[in-house]
């Protein structure tokens, strides 16, 4: 009987609570920004800080300025577990909600591949910031997809340039052994063609080692690394794969300062489990780590002090947290660019696309929004949705990440022609035709 009473009470509580909670939205000046996240599953160590960063920056804008130029941002999260099927379900559920989604930031190359064909039909921008399909960076073929500030191909070329700098010149790479350890998925494979091309050009010996999802088992991989004894190891990992790799590298006493992760393989969650063994591990990034920026002070003041946060306060400033912040910042700056042309009111998805395509984020603007020195300026054009941004190399000192290089330019002369050729191929697969950028306004 008691169980029954509890059930009845519960039901009654739900019935009473439901209408009260349902009357929140329905304001006129709003724009809907869905956030596909993964806070559970084997990729949660990577997904959670990013989701927190994105959430906090957008909430901070709502709390501090009342949104963007008076238009509030409605943010809703949807859990994907980094699984493409659940990502598609999220996309279909959220795309028409709250007056229509403005933009999707899938944070998964697999989901991005799903959304690229779909979103163009639904006319929704997909911003795969530094991930996704590199070929889609050619705006003439993929008008609805943006990959700025940079792509896996550019990143790989920047890393090779950095390795060249460390070795005393790109010509010194000849005969050196470089291993690429990658997540055996579209994401991990993305850098391979560029690395192969560069290995021909500079004469280094490239070995590609795949690690299967989810990446908890890497003994065989690192045994091979030990046998090959490479000068440098480059890694494209994600989720638990990263921490396992860092631990394994430490276990075989691989010189950590010759082990470079890509920008998804270099966050706190990846190195802390390896303890002191991770000291010296390097990673690429396109923004600074840490909390020494005005934005972080505002986030603490307007989000955490008001209790609007999801994540814990001590994780602010982690590498992937800042990645979420920079993603949110690109998005809102694109909205602002569109509003400068179309007026300070809720935008249509076509106007948002225009904003993305004409985004010109200058040093001065970064200073204005409290992110001086946080990231590199970006200029997007109709042809170039990548921006070909340079990367930084950061290094783990056992306690925090420190930037140890200047901005390293990608080898655009190598990457861009391959990118354009791939765009033609991928575009044709989908039955697209090339847009004439000289006719765009």
């Amino acid at each position, binding site marked *: 009987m008691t169980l029954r009473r509890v059930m009845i009470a519960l039901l009654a509580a739900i019935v009473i609570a439901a209408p009260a909670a349902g009357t929140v939205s329905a304001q006129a000046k709003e724009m809907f920004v869905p956030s596909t996240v993964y806070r*559970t599953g084997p990729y949660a160590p990577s997904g959670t800080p990013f989701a927190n960063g994105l959430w906090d920056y957008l909430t901070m804008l709502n709390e501090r300025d009342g949104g963007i130029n008076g238009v509030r941002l409605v943010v809703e999260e949807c859990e994907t577990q980094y699984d493409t099927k659940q990502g598609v379900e999220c996309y279909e559920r959220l795309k028409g909600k709250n007056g229509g989604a403005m933009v999707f930031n899938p944070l998964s190359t697999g989901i991005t591949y799903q959304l690229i064909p779909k979103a163009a039909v639904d006319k929704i921008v997909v911003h795969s910031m530094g991930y996704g399909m590199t070929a889609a960076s050619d705006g003439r073929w993929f008008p609805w997809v943006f990959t700025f500030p940079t792509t896996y191909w550019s990143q790989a070329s920047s890393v090779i340039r950095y390795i060249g700098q460390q070795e005393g010149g790109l010509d010194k790479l000849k005969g050196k052994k470089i291993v690429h350890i990658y997540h055996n998925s579209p994401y991990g494979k993305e850098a391979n063609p560029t690395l192969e091309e560069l290995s021909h050009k500079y004469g280094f010996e490239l070995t590609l080692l795949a690690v299967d999802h989810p990446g908890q088992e890497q003994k065989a991989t690192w045994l091979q690394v030990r046998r090959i004894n490479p000068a440098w190891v480059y890694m494209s990992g994600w989720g638990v794969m990263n921490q396992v790799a860092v631990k394994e590298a430490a276990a075989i006493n691989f010189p950590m300062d010759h082990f470079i992760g890509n920008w998804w393989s270099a966050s706190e969650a990846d190195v802390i489990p390896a303890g002191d063994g991770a000291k010296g591990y390097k990673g690429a990034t396109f923004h600074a780590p840490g909390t020494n920026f005005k934005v972080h002070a505002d986030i603490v003041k307007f989000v955490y002090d008001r209790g609007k946060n999801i994540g814990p306060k001590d994780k602010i400033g982690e590498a992937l947290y800042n990645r979420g912040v920079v993603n949110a910042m690109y998005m809102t700056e694109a909205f602002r660019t569109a509003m400068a042309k179309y007026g300070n009111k809720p935008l249509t998805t076509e106007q948002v696309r225009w904003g993305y395509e004409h985004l010109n984020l200058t040093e001065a603007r970064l200073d204005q929004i409290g992110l001086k020195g946080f990231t590199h300026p970006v200029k997007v054009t109709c042809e170039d949705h990548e921006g070909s941004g340079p990367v930084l190399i950061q290094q783990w000192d056992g306690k925090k990440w420190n930037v140890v290089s200047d901005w390293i330019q990608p080898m655009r002369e190598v990457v861009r022609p391959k990118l354009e050729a791939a765009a033609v191929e991928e575009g044709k*697969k989908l039955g697209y035709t090339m847009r004439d950028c000289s006719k765009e306004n």
Partner: protein
Amino acid sequence: MIYREAGQFKSTYASDQALFPIRQDRVVVGLAVAAAVIAVPLVADEYWLQAVLIPFLIYALAALGLNLLTGYAGQVSLGTGGFMAVGGYAAFKLTSAFPGMNVLVAFLLAGLVTALVGLVFGLPSLRIKGFYLAVATLAAQFFLLWLFNKVAWFTDYASSGTITAPPRTVASIMVTGPAATAPVRYLTALAFVALFALVAKNLVRGRVGRSWMAIRDRDIAAEIIGVRPLRTKLLAFAISSFFCGVAGAEYVFLYLGSAETQAFDINVSFLVLFMVIIGGLGSILGSFLGAAFIVMVPIFLTNVPHLLGLAMPVALQKQIELMVFGGLIIAFLIVEPHGLARLWQIAKEKLRLWPFPY
């Protein structure tokens, strides 16, 4: 009272052997099919079609295939995901090699290719039985996915290893590719699953199905009465793989749009096996009920907090969803170990006696 066949006399062999001998069943099934064909595309929005119904139909087809093998022929298989991958990759290779080919024909040919692969992996079933066979088919799952991941030819040398469904029309209606509308995809999947359900239903009540069941129930006895184990088991593997192959082709072309091997990982094999077990081993209807349960319940649970207006962190929501879903599976299996189809059968029996049960 309503559901009673009293007074329905059979005067011909044909009517006695009809698929649905009871008139009420015929009416209900007819209405259900009509509703699925006419009403659903008119009523359902894109979310329902694309995220709920299309995966349901595709998984139902795969479950149907596995049910023939596991439920009727008694051969446990954990290679469904691998076989679906064969279907998906075969359909992709066929459409890219022959751009003029009707995509529906490509689906069927992909099924044939999968049937051949299934034959090969069915060979161990002649020597190994039960759980050991499940382990042997697990090899198919891992080997096939490894193959598609390793050999770039299967993806037409795409650098990312992803296959994309090309835009194709049938009778000048876009069926696959990004521009194909959700109702068209839905109807295509529905047509396939209806056709194959009919085929399966007729197979299992004919000579072939009876020989499968004979093998399942006691293979030595079946052999003595003249059922050839080699031919029967391999036929079960081939036909089952054919169904799974078509389902895999649909999975890529009608549902996902583009896929990598990850989309067919071991979880897919388990999901389809759970569908068969929860729906009911050795039941055509059970395949549909099981697919509906496994596909729709998690989506329903995801949406419950929204429907109730409860603001809940997504991570918590997901974890609750997993717990409730697991609890439901256990609850159903305790209440009725023979699956949802058996529940329906019991309901039917009760309805016949209603309102005077004895």
